[in-house]
């Protein structure tokens, strides 16, 4: 069996289009997941009360359902349950954001809790208003600490977009499978998208690993 490069050359606009869809769905989902994650994280940081229990329940729920089930459930079941129509793309973003929110909440929390208590204590002792303590004292070191985890999660999210092929979102994997069934050049197209995924994700992984090593060297924890 020979590898037909012409197939890829002929259909590369479709393939790049699929990659672009994967990227923007990831970006949009990450943005929504960050907002959900921030709210859930604030809830989780309350020591007790309803907010903490709600946040815990959210995290436990969405970390215990496989992404693929969540995606299918949002697209096929949610509309039936509430008698509304949700498009493929909206379903995709809702499912990935809900799933991502749970992970982002934990990433944020780890970042915030890694900021030494003494920093907040000193800021309180100076009478700095709570808003400024959060913005100037807690968030900047927290972000620095959670960068590696955040980039790792970004790569997970990118990989998870390939599951969206199942609900007909024309991202990279979906494009490959439709081109494959049209031309029977499965090998060419799946090889091509494997390379494309790798080219997007591998640099991110390298960055995360380097950032983590740099941080360890600088702070030792």
């Amino acid at each position, binding site marked *: 069996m020979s590898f037909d490069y012409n197939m890829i050359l002929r259909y590369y606009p479709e393939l790049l289009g699929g990659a672009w869809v994967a990227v923007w769905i990831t970006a949009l989902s990450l943005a929504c997941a960050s907002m959900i994650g921030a709210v859930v994280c604030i809830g989780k940081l309350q020591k007790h009360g309803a907010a903490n229990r709600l946040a815990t329940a959210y995290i436990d729920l969405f970390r215990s359902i496989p992404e693929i089930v969540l995606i299918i459930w949002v697209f096929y079941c949610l509309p039936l349950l509430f008698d509304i129509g949700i498009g493929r793309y909206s379903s995709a973003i809702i499912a990935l954001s809900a799933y991502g929110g749970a992970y982002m909440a934990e990433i944020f929390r780890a970042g915030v809790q890694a900021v*030494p208590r*003494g*920093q907040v*204590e*000193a*800021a*309180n*002792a*100076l*009478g*700095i*208003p709570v808003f*400024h303590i959060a913005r*100037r*004292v807690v968030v*900047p*070191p927290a972000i*620095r600490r959670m960068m590696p985890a955040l980039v790792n999660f970004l790569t997970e999210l990118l990989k998870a977009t390939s599951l969206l092929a199942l609900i007909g979102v024309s991202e990279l994997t979906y494009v490959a499978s439709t081109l494959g069934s049209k031309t029977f050049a499965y090998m060419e197209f799946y090889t091509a998208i494997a390379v494309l995924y790798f080219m997007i994700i591998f640099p991110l992984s390298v960055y995360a690993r380097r950032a983590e090593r740099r941080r360890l060297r600088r702070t030792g924890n």
Partner: protein
Amino acid sequence: MSETANGTNGGDPIIRCRGVVKRFDDFTALDAVSTEVRTGEVVCIVGPSGGGKSTFLRMINGLEGIDGGEIVVDGIHLPGSKKDIQRVRREVGMVFQSFNLFMHMSVRENLILAPMTARKIGRAAADERAERLLERVGIGDQIDKYPSQLSGGQQQRVAIARALAMEPKVMLFDEPTSALDPEMIKEVLDVMVELAESGMTMLCVTHEMSFAREAAGRVLFMADGQILVDAPPARFFSEAEDERQASFLSKIL
């Protein structure tokens, strides 16, 4: 005006504690503590570990809640509203054993953050104040460095300057030299002595007896959540009036 313990005239009481109680679950950390500190007074607090010294300091600027009694700082009553607690914190500076500088900020940023956000003074005035205070604690040339680039003694002096930048009426020190290498203790104590001489009201938990002798007007001995002794340093170190004080002195002197 009344006489303070060491015979010098103090100002009016700026801190008044009446029957202050602190509980952690069912453990009583402070058991009806009452005392007064007058404007310009320097008071050292000593005593065995776990006696409640840190807890007492932390209550004076609202870092710990009050379970009984009351603390009045410059006319502001604690326990009080969140707003009252913020007001007290602006008037009371605190220096910690572990410095607690903001590690991701330069020395300058450490010093201007609180004045700009809690006192709402402008950037130029905050900068000017930061420069002046760093000169005063002897590290004017370190203003653009980061805390991790400084020695422990320098970091603690930055921490003192950071507290002073709020122009507090009272300064609290919780074992400010305990985390320092011996050769750096003096540079921090020198700053504290200068501060005391300038008339700052100070409450210092410290085991530097040289500082207590030199700068303090009164020494409080705290154990088991109570102030057992309140005496001028000369008398405190020469004649023990309490059994626990005697055993404490025999260990440290």
